[in-house]
């Protein structure tokens, strides 16, 4: 083998790639961080809530306050999960001063917010700068077309570099942090293509709103933020949901639609987005807000079962490319898992190179570290939630039943009151789905949460 151009080539300057590149450069390895946008973040889009504890553990200078330089928007102190029907909204509204801070594991995380809202055009360049400060060489505006492989001793392909613009760039190890589509690992036949039911398309708009109006509308103190998750008629019943997050002077609003359900629905993604954006029950938050950007991004919905193999001969896979997302039903995570996996990948790849073994065996320490981490434990804890969300209950029948029970309780129409238990039984009977489905929903809910 010819001498490599770099010890490590990291593909993708998102949270996973930048954190991997930073750790590798801190270990005095030569690292190239290749990004297809002209500037990191240009190609990236997320709903927008980051749980920053793992990032602040790795970077103690992570800003605790929303100063102009801080790469985040608002501290999330209020989480609202709502079932939206054409005429009603039923919500779990959780606000807690304890969310202003989290203790984290390093002890140095005083006043670190539990969760912050982010816009990727600000977060991702900040992360990539940390990698550059550590000594990684950022190569922006370059699309990597494929992995360069050679047949290994056992016939399986061994990754020896990357190919971009017809040029080969050789590296001892490649870190594929190339996002949810992960063309690199799939193109080399190393990871399977996910099924449409394991993917959802996120369609998002950023809407401008002055800070004062935003705080009034969402019931917030200055600088504080809210995260709303909505399900039901907001997506016209298509499996998935909607989100509404507060930034400094804008809102992030979008829908997430499972590809199999969307294809069956007879509607298009932009029709469902339009339906959500103009939904009468959401007008109190969105009215008069002007769209300043429209975008989309795929989301992996398979949870733990979608992760699979993450270490190969000369290659590790991190972040969205490794399917690292969690939807617990209440909490949606991805960026914090990407950050953890990038940090662990950086450490493990450095150790493998120092030990002179960049084979799948040598790089297995990354897979082991990921499994042993809190991120790995959380992936396993919520391994069964995707099965719950494959059931139709969350997208219609549950919200309809809740509406019947609450309407029967609150709406005094002159008729004698019926006890809550009767209202509940009647709501289940009239729901249009059989008792067996309700029992199945209850069992899936119990197993998954």
């Amino acid at each position, binding site marked *: 083998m010819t001498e490599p151009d770099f010890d490590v080539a990291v593909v993708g300057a998102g949270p996973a790639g930048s954190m991997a590149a930073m750790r590798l450069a801190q270990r005095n390895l030569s690292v190239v961080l290749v990004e*297809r*946008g*002209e500037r990191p*973040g*240009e*190609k*990236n*889009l*997320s709903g927008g809530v980051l749980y920053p504890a793992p990032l602040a553990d790795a970077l103690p200078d992570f800003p605790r306050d929303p100063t102009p330089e801080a790469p985040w928007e608002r501290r999330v102190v209020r989480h609202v999960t709502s079932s939206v029907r054409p005429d009603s909204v039923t919500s779990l509204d959780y606000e807690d001063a304890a969310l202003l801070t989290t203790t984290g594991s390093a002890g140095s995380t005083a006043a670190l917010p539990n969760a912050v809202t982010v*816009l*990727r*055009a600000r*977060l*991702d360049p900040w992360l990539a700068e940390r990698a550059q400060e550590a000594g990684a060489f950022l190569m*922006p*505006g*370059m*699309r990597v*077309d494929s992995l360069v492989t050679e047949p290994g001793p056992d016939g399986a392909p061994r990754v020896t570099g990357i190919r*971009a*613009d017809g040029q080969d760039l050789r590296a001892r190890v490649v870190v594929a942090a190339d996002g*949810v*589509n992960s*063309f690199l690992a799939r193109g080399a036949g190393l990871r399977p*293509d*996910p099924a*449409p039911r394991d*993917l959802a*398309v*996120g*369609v998002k*708009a*950023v809407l401008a709103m002055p800070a004062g109006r935003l705080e009034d509308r969402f019931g917030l103190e200055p600088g504080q933020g809210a995260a709303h998750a909505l399900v039901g008629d907001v997506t016209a019943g298509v499996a998935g949901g909607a989100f509404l997050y507060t930034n400094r002077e*804008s809102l992030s609003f979008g829908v997430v*639609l499972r*590809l199999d359900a*969307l*294809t069956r*629905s*007879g*509607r*298009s*993604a*932009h029709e469902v*987005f*339009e339906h959500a954006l103009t939904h009468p029950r959401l007008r109190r938050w969105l009215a008069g807000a002007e*769209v*300043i*950007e*429209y*975008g*989309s*991004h*795929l989301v992996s919905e398979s949870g733990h079962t979608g992760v699979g193999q993450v270490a190969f001969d000369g290659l590790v896979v991190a972040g969205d490319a490794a399917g690292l997302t969690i939807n617990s039903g209440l909490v949606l995570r991805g960026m914090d898992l990407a950050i953890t996996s990038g940090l662990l990948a950086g450490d493990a790849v450095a150790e493998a190179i120092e030990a002179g073994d960049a084979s799948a065996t040598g790089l297995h320490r990354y897979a082991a570290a990921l499994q042993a981490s809190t991120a790995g434990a959380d992936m396993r804890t919520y391994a069964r939630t995707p099965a719950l969300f494959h059931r139709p209950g969350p997208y219609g029948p549950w919200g309809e039943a809740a509406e019947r029970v609450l309407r029967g309780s609150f709406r005094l129409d002159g008729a004698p009151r019926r006890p809550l238990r009767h209202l509940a039984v009647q709501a289940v009977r009239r729901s249009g789905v059989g008792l067996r489905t309700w029992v199945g929903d209850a069992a899936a809910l119990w197993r998954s949460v």
Partner: protein
Amino acid sequence: MSERTPVNLRLGTTRFVTDSQSHIDPSALRAGSPAARAVIAVCPAGVYREVGDRVLADAAACLECGACLAVAPDLGWHYPRGGTGVTFRQG
């Protein structure tokens, strides 16, 4: 497709740098086929449309999410060349 549909108005807020080479080749799709209906349904940018028995793609409006490829593996689709395509200023 009218120029004034809601999706077109919203796409007007997003910045694009058009690649001189199209990164989408829909020639393997037939109009009316399940794959053609699926790519039209899942694309948030309304990139795909049917003309006669063909499927055409307006690659310049592509948001690069990859939803189309996930539902139609026969589609020719990859990211546009480095430095071109969608440029999110918010994300």
